[in-house]
């Protein structure tokens, strides 16, 4: 898909912005604190309703105003779509609303219309960082892919918070505990199944991409490590696995007063030639694996939607050496549109369709 037009109003340091990006690679060059990351954050918000860095939505609303609006015109396989994500800052906190072609829609309906794959410097920790980063990686891709995944995730989080509250109470109500665990099993099964299927596809693509990147003949293995094991990737088997694990850990959970079982403790296992990458890999090997994962994410998202998502690269190509940067873009291959930011002109042949300068929240095309 192609984003033909982007309009921002009161988003971070942008008072107003109207941008007509080109198909192909759009390269945004600017010094620090001029608005590069803010632009990519806005693009990611427009697609997913979530920021890749702000903890709170109100951080995105420009200081001193009450309404931030991100609008886009996208050319997709199923026609032209006008989409908008607004954040209203009120006395009672911030509220997000979404519209598609001018009609207000729910988040679950909005999500997945403009699909994005983001790659930001913090993603470079994907191999060595905590499991929450890898779960976030899976969630970002799956929530855009399937609205039932997003719903299950939201239900799971609520049930988990309730269960933890029951476990922390002075006397634990066993009936309530069971009710919330049933809810956790129901939504958890949807989550685990979706992750299982996704990681199977991801593993194939990641191994393929890695094979192209790695100079040596190393093999990257990506596997899904579900917290609660199951015999087969079917709904019944996953639910039975969750139920058995909950039973086995029930006493420990009561003693430690926290929920220890379920997909909120899932992880990905990353191995290079059968050795754990985080412990044994060199920094270069870990970085190459991250690139392979990101290329694989892009490939799976593209195949599942039968449409190329937008590629958003915030200041990562400059973190990579010229060879890896080139290999990454070649790996992504047939992207239809990419937004790439950098503080410095990037070495090597990047072939941008257009280069833009960002200065103090103003974006101007560089004459070519």
């Amino acid at each position, binding site marked *: 898909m192609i984003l033909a037009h982007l309009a921002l109003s009161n988003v971070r340091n942008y008072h107003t912005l109207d941008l007509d990006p080109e198909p192909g690679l759009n390269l945004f060059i600017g010094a620090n604190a001029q608005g590069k990351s803010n632009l990519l954050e806005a693009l990611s918000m427009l697609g997913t309703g979530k920021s890749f860095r702000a903890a709170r939505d109100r951080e995105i609303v420009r200081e001193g105003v009450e309404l931030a609006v991100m609008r886009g015109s996208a050319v997709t396989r199923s026609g032209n779509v006008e989409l908008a994500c607004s954040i209203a800052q*009120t*006395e*009672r906190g911030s509220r997000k609303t979404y519209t598609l072609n001018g009609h207000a829609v*729910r988040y*679950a*309906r909005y999500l997945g219309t403009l699909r994005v794959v983001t790659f930001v410097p913090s993603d470079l920790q994907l191999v060595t960082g905590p499991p929450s980063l890898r779960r976030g990686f899976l969630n970002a891709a799956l929530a855009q892919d399937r*609205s*039932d995944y997003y*719903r299950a995730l939201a*239900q799971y989080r*609520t*049930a988990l*918070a*309730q269960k*933890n*509250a*029951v476990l922390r*109470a002075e006397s634990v*109500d066993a*009936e*309530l505990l069971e*009710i*919330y665990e*049933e*809810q956790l099993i129901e939504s958890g099964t949807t989550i685990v199944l979706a992750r299982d299927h996704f990681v199977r596809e991801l593993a194939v693509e990641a191994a393929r991409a890695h094979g192209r990147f790695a100079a040596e003949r190393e093999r990257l293995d990506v596997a899904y490590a579900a917290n609660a094991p199951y015999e087969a990737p079917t709904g019944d088997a996953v639910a039975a696995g969750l139920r058995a694990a909950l039973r086995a850990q029930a006493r420990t959970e009561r003693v430690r007063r926290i929920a220890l079982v379920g997909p909120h403790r899932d992880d990905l296992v990353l191995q290079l030639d059968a050795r754990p990458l985080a412990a044994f890999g060199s920094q270069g090997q870990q970085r190459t694996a991250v690139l392979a994962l990101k290329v694989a994410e892009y490939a799976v998202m593209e195949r599942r939607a039968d449409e190329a998502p937008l590629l958003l690269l915030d200041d990562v190509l400059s973190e990579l050496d010229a060879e890896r940067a080139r290999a990454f873009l070649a790996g992504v291959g047939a992207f239809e549109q990419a937004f790439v930011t950098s503080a410095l002109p990037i070495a090597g042949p990047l072939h941008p369709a257009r280069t833009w300068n960002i200065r103090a929240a103003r974006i101007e095309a560089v004459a070519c």
Partner: protein
Amino acid sequence: MPAPGSIVGPVAALINEFSKLPTIGPKTAARLVFYLLNRPRHESQMLADAIMEAKDRVRFCSICFALTEADPCTLCTDEQRDPAMLCVVAEAKDIFAIERTGAFRGRYHVLGGLISPMDGVGPAELHVKELVERVGSTATAEILIATNPNAEGEATALYLARLLQPLGSLVTRLAYGLPIGGDLDYADETTLARALEGRRSM
């Protein structure tokens, strides 16, 4: 000393009182206060009287916890109503919604909220004990649980079902489905999926 231009005295006090109300923030509160101050005195008098009148005369029914002037309430004393049918709702206002349908002729029980441990609301904070006692002491054929179809409403309904089923009454739950006069393609997937699960033969 307050900064020049800041609101002080009785106006500030009234804004403060309004902003304690649900869904009213300080700005809305100020709007309401300035509106009232611009209107004739008797309008404010009527508002104040109405609030005090309701507060003094309306209380919770000691049987079903609905809002009432007389205790027990007319719903609990109405002989035309079937005492063997009991409808459990979260809030007193939910009774009005069900009464508007005219399709229910039993009695009610108001829980006073929904179970949500993360918000500090457990069964002990609601009128659950009173419900169990009521079902135990009167012949109840059916208990209809009419809580909202959201996470808290579901958990509360499940909890009550486990508690009440051993007492021998039939425990039912409001059906899920499509809004009447609605369009299939406007229904969200969850609602439609629930409507499919709850389909019935005709």
